[in-house]
């Protein structure tokens, strides 16, 4: 188990990482989700031992490893830019950690072949990284991380430089490959959909702070504050600042019915937020509220349409199934499925979210 106790990193008087407490269990997959410069890489470097925290301590399986340099810890790291030894063959690249550890020749042979098989590199073992495609280079880096049999595997946006489809394939394979080793798996990404596809646990980061940590679907559906909800939304979240009065939300003269799960919320100013797919062109359920908005631009993805709307000055995105190439600057009726509304106080903290 990896524990971070009040770990913080200050650089030139500013916090790069605010005091953080995290615990990762053995065999778990943990995603660090956040935009660029939110602190994912810094946090990973602190976990690996590449950087020393300015405060707090890092513990592994109960013992304090804060001062221990990374060479002594059993850590493997995979980077966004496929990092391999350029002059060694794929075989030698994968074998390198074992050679450093002084393993026997037959052991090395066996482990390299096993890893190559798992990552589908067997036909390329004689090539050097320069003669491989991006996907193959990254697989080599992954194989090298795999044979190390590390107890902590850190991956810093490893699929970001790969093609969309390749990313899909590798993303599916990764958890399966590393699940067998029982290591703690930490994966950093900027894309919420990747976090959802990988599953496991997610820690959302924003400006050097971990805003929430828990099982991925829970963080997605029950964000503890507005920042987490925003970090986890792709397409971006829609919001509205309203005044709750009994069973209705007031917004600039318009009235919306309050859904059942929010009736017990205190009256007063709150922010309500919802995902684009909770807005639609057809009245799906009786809990839908009808709103009138102005279209801006429609984007068709072949099976769905992203319609950009202007609702009284607010910029919203609607994800409607089917193809709807709406005329820009026209009025349209949209339906908001209020069953999934999330309510946040004016301070950003969640008041109630749909279960």
């Amino acid at each position: 188990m990896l524990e971070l106790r009040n770990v913080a990193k200050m650089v030139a008087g500013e916090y790069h990482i605010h005091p953080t407490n995290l615990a990762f269990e053995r065999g778990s997959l943990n995603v660090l989700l956040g935009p660029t410069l939110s602190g994912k890489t810094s946090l990973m470097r602190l976990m690996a031992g590449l950087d020393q925290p300015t405060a707090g301590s890092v513990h592994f399986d109960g013992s304090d490893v804060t001062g221990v340099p990374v060479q002594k810890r059993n850590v493997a790291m995979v980077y966004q830019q496929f990092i391999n030894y350029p002059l060694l063959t794929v075989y030698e690249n994968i074998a390198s950690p074992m050679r450093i550890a002084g393993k026997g020749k037959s052991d090395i042979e066996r482990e390299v072949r096993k890893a190559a098989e798992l990552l589908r590199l067997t036909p390329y073992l004689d090539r050097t990284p320069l003669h491989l495609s991006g996907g193959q280079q990254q697989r080599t880096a992954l194989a090298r991380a795999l044979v190390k049999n590390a107890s902590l595997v850190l991956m810093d946006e490893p699929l970001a430089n790969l093609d969309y489809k390749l990313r899909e394939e590798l993303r599916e394979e990764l958890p399966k490959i590393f699940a067998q080793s029982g290591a703690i798996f930490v994966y950093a990404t900027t894309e919420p959909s990747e976090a959802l596809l990988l599953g496991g646990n997610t820690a959302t980061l924003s400006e050097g702070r971990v805003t929430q940590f828990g099982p991925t679907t829970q963080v997605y559906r029950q964000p503890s504050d507005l920042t987490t909800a925003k970090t986890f939304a792709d397409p971006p979240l829609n919001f509205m600042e309203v005044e709750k009065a009994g069973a209705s939300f007031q917004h600039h003269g318009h009235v919306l019915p309050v859904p059942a799960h929010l009736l017990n919320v205190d009256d007063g100013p709150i922010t309500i937020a919802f995902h684009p797919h909770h807005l639609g062109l057809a009245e799906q359920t009786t809990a839908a509220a009808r709103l009138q908005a102005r279209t801006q631009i429609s984007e068709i993805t072949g099976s769905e349409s992203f319609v950009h709307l202007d609702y009284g000055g607010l910029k919203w995105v609607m994800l409607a199934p089917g193809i709807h190439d709406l005329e820009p600057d026209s009025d349209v009726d949209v339906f908001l499925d209020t069953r999934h509304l999330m309510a946040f106080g004016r301070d950003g903290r969640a008041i109630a979210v749909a279960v």
Partner: protein
Amino acid sequence: MNKTYNNKAWFFVLPVLLLVAFSAAIPLMTVVNYSVQDTFGNNEFFWAGTDWFDEILHSDRFWDALGRNLFFSFIILAIEIPLGIFIALNMPKKGIGVPVCLVLMALPLLIPWNVVGTIWQVFGRVDIGLLGRTLASLGIDYNYVRDPIDAWITVIVMDVWHWTSLVVLLCYAGLVSIPDAYYQAAKIDGASRWAVFRYIQLPKMKRVLLIAVLLRFMDSFMIYTEPFVVTGGGPGNSTTFLSIDLVKMAVGQFDLGPAAAMSIVYFLIILLLSWVFYTVMTSSDAEEGGRDDG
């Protein structure tokens, strides 16, 4: 990128520290010692305090030599830096030409300095030197032994021949790191050759140019071997730089005290000017803020 903190690193540095101690730190302390004493080197020391420093700072000889050094460095930088940039810009970036040019550029840097001096000393001689004789046969009155201006020109040309390659190699390294997309974008924007240089190449070379200027300034200010071999400081004392003067005083006249004082002053001047250069240039570097994205 932050380095891992590891005490073992000090062991790697130890041999170098010892070397520097013996070849620089201890001799420096000896010089300081000499500069405040009066001695003929026979182990008899009489305290002189700041007398030697007074004498040096009030001597015309010192100020003349210093003036020559500053003038020389100025000319050297004015020629070598633009010339170096120009050559680097015109060197091929791909293909067989690359290693050929790099080797050609490296050659002058590999020649021992006194050999450089000797080459030019012979080259410029009116009787047996290729250059000297050619100029004489063309009717040009060139004689670095007699004419101070000719002596200066010889020393300057020699230094340019010797050291421009360093500037070229440094600038070239900076240039090759520019991604093709910048040139493509400039083409698309209709930029002229000059605009490409000014807005793309020069900014990217700024960091290496800083190193080049600093190195060339320090080296040219300390110059000794080459002019000494060619002109010996002559004719008269027209090419007597501080370093040459210093050696004359210490080794020729055995005025160890004043010589030591002069070396301290010399050392402090170099230190001061280098520090000024460095601060001015790195402060403009710091303005660059922001990360290099992409």
